[in-house]
């Protein structure tokens, strides 16, 4: 479905002919999505400024053209015939304010680019995603991400400050202190926090946003070493940080073999509570073991060879990772001492050395200095996607106890799909990331399937549905942000169980986007 010619022309007049396209060869590149294909957009437009965005949005509103934005990991159009905004050209870091510790960025700035610029100034942007290439603009779209460093810095939901926002009508609103002419430092107020409305690109497009930064005690420039695997020729990157201020620690907690699924998980949860409550460890988390395995291998063949031995499954069940950033050696020693004490109290032990050092190079085991790069910059090799594909299931962010309880049901749900050979028995591919000194925690369960095989793909989706049903049946909080995955009917069904939030959301949507043009499927569509 194409845009009406007159509309296309008007948008072309705004951005110039080279920045809009309806060439099928280009459009198809915007169709891919992690769980399968999305819909083909009618056209892709790449505006350069807030003014251009506002003008295009006004045209869309006037002609009732539905649109959405492209950001990494969130590429698809939910329905055919939409205009897709690709905001990559809006990639300026407008300001890094060292005194007030914030950066003002456009939505096309990548997390990694911002992090590196911050290091140069003795600051850090705690990358609120496990994917460094994801755009900072994802915050503006509501895909705020969690990242690893949430224990000390919280997650992306708390990082945004004042913002410039183009409403679905094309009006530009400045949120927080910016609107009152007081600069970028505060997102909330005056009076009620209108920043509570910015999310999901369902109500307009954020074109500039300030992001909180934090002090950085590491080198102003990260030196990156390229490692080449002597056997396979595969490469990986490693960053070495000063050993008196930074430390990555891996602990094997009592395993599933030793204590069983539930008891071992409880034990691990207890340790997470204690570490985060002791206020140590910038990043504290239990990682999915599947990525640990796959990142430790240099080729997929190597992965499969090792996977069938069962070694990884045994050694990496119940691992806690702790990344310490310290202002000096004494601080480092203190934090490490506390962490080790808690781990010991909970029956854990440090992972073997080959989990750290040259394991990857000698093809022996895991190379987890790579994890440092991943934690700080969100860069990973993304081999997990190359493995075949994945889906995820989760419950909503809540306490560590809640996500531990939720995780206890994973084996039961997984069983039927594994037994039929439709998904991989990705044992313990379930993560827990405490945030805000353990006041909350994030969880996710990776479902590894072969998305090129229709039966496997269907199984991944069925697994996700089954987990959602379990959330509902056992009264776990829903993930509450993935409505577009499951459709309006699902939302209408669960809405009454969640304080009828869908009705309020519909009212807000109608009030701010009367023609329902802004990413309507991402939001809930009011009854038309």
């Amino acid at each position, binding site marked *: 479905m194409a845009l009406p010619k007159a509309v296309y022309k008007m948008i072309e007049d705004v951005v110039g002919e080279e920045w809009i396209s309806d060439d099928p060869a280009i459009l198809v590149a915007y169709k891919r999505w992690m769980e399968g294909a999305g819909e083909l957009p009618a056209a892709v437009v790449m505006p350069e400024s807030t003014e251009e965005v506002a003008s295009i949005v006004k045209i869309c509103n006037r002609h009732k053209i539905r649109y959405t934005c492209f950001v990494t990991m969130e590429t698809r159009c939910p329905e055919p015939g939409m205009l897709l905004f690709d905001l990559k050209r809006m990639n300026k870091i407008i300001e890094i*304010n060292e005194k*007030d*510790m914030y950066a003002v960025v456009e939505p096309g700035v990548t997390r990694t680019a911002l992090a590196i610029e911050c290091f140069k100034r003795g600051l850090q942007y705690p990358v609120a995603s496990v994917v460094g290439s994801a755009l900072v603009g994802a915050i503006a779209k509501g895909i705020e991400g969690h990242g690893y460093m949430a224990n*000390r*810095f919280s997650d992306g*939901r708390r990082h945004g400050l004042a913002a410039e926002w183009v409403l679905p009508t094309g009006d530009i609103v*400045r949120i927080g*202190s910016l*609107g*009152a*002419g*007081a*600069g970028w*430092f*505060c997102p*909330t*107020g*005056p*009076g*009620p*926090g*209108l*920043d*509570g409305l910015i999310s999901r690109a369902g109500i307009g497009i954020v074109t500039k946003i300030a992001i*909180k930064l*934090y002090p950085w005690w590491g080198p102003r420039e990260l030196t990156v070493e390229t490692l080449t695997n002597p056997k396979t020729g595969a490469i990986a990157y490693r960053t070495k940080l000063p050993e008196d201020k930074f430390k990555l620690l891996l602990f094997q907690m009592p395993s599933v073999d030793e204590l069983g699924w539930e008891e071992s998980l409880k034990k691990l949860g207890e340790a997470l509570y204690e570490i985060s*409550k002791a*206020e140590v460890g*910038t990043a504290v988390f239990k990682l999915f073991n599947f990525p640990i395995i796959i990142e430790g291998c240099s080729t997929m063949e190597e992965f499969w060879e090792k996977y069938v031995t069962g070694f990884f499954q045994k050694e990496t069940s119940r691992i806690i990772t702790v990344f310490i950033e310290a*202002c000096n050696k*004494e601080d480092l020693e*203190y*934090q490490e*001492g*506390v962490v080790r*004490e808690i781990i010991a109290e909970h029956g854990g032990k440090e992972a073997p050395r080959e989990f750290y050092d040259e394991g990857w190079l000698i093809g022996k085991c895991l190379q987890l200095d790579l994890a440092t790069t991943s934690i700080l910059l969100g860069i990973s090799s993304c081999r997990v996607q190359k493995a075949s594909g994945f889906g995820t299931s989760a419950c*909503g*962010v*809540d*306490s560590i*106890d*809640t996500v531990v309880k939720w995780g206890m049901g994973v084996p039961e749900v997984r069983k039927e799909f594994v037994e039929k050979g439709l998904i991989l028995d990705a044992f313990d591919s379930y993560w827990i990331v405490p945030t805000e*000194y353990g*006041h*909350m925690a994030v969880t996710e369960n990776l479902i590894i399937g072969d998305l090129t095989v229709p039966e496997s793909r269907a199984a991944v989706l069925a697994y996700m549905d089954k987990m959602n049903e379990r959330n*509902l049946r056992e*009264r*776990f*909080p*829903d993930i*509450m*942000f993935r409505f577009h995955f499951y459709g309006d009917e699902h939302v209408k069904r669960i809405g009454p*169980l969640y*304080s*009828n*939030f869908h009705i*309020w*959301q519909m009212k*807000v949507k109608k*009030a701010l986007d009367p023609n329902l043009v802004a990413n309507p499927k991402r939001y809930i569509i009011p009854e038309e």
Partner: protein
Amino acid sequence: MLELEVLIKKLAEVVGPEDVVTNPEILEESSKDHSFVKPIKPFCVVFPQNKEEVKQIIRLANEYKVPLTPISSGPPHFRGDTIPREGGIIINLSKMKRILRIDTRNRTVMVEPGVTFGELVPHLEKSGLRLNMPFLPRASKSVVTSYLEREPPIIPKYQFDYVDPLLTMEVVFGTGDEFRTGTASGPGSIEEMQCDMVNPFGPGDIKYFKLLSGAQGTLGIVTWAMVKAEVKPRIRKIYFVPFENIEKMIETKNRLLRYGVMGSVADEILALNNFNLAVILAEKWPEEFETLRKSLPPWMLIFCIAGYRRAEERVKVQENCLMEIAQELALEPTQSMPGAPGKEKMMLELLSKPWGKEPYWKLRYKGSCCEIFFLAPPSKVACLISPIYEVAVKYGYPTSDIGCYIQSIVQGHAYHVEFDLPYNPSDPKEVEITRKVFMDASDLLMRMGGFFSRPYGPWAQMVYSRYGEGVILLKKVKDIFDPNHILNPGALFVF
């Protein structure tokens, strides 16, 4: 029978006749506070005791199109937000007093709006927890209101955004509909849910906890809130650094919040000028106050170093970090208070408790006090201090009577700056001078970049007249959650 009398009768049927007050003296008391907002009397004060009663009162207010002004805290009130700007009913939530949950494992507390700091703090202490409290709130201050109105807590390292430590809430919107925010929203009833209701975001795509914050009850009435509590430290040491110069004090504060274990040397950290500190510390009034205000330095930076697990070791690391900073900045932090030796223990206690004595500390000097407060980024704080003194001189207000309090917030990303202007409420001339200083200084500070993020009283008009684009949006929001505009009309000026 007058319609008003019918309404009062219906209210009495909801809450019981003893909880609908029409006593002229109470109505007179409810009509005014220490702000310069014009006094207006409500025609009754109603005291609900549970959510169902709140819902029914809101429905009646909608039916009769009568304004409803919520109050939770006890007096004294300072900001005009509890004055019924268009008359009507005051809904006083002070009888909703249940502490519904103290969760030591997840460090949270769930309270109704009538629970005050004076009531909650001792309960938490017994559980080994503490609140990240605002500085010396009155004992009668509602915990829920304080956090809902984004009052600045005194331990910035725990505050991840401007609404933290507020988590989830139950609210009755202006429509009379009940709603729960974040993971408290569902699925199903609270008893059924498998969660601890600690995630404030959602449900769905809207961050209701942000939208409801700073709203002065104009969108809904909160019937309980879950807020964060923190671990009570095993060791807590207080330090003082005197300053003549505000710039250097701000620089020191910034440094203390950007170094040390997990990025902060300090737990509680704040600064007071000599006037406010003397008002707070004086035990024998007024002699000791007069002595203290002379002996204390112009500015005092006060902060605590705390130890949790391996407490001595942590405190040692933090103290070494402090000494590194002190050496670089040529400072001498001490554990004894310069200008007020012997008051250290008292100060340490004051940092973890509400003000329990009468009168409230802000009223000690002259019987009344007017507040000016705003937010500013670290780089702007110092230049936003002197304007008030210039305005005070212009109107003949004694500059030595200006109290000042500076609070770092949101992990050191911003500051709450507060001026306290005491005045004698019985002296019309002094009242008028103070009012002029308040109005002119507020306007000047706003124009210089102070962010009046909580626009009480006359500030609402000043702030929103500069923020047309936001006002349009706010009005749309108001029309959704309170379509008949019965909740605290006039408080935010724009609706």
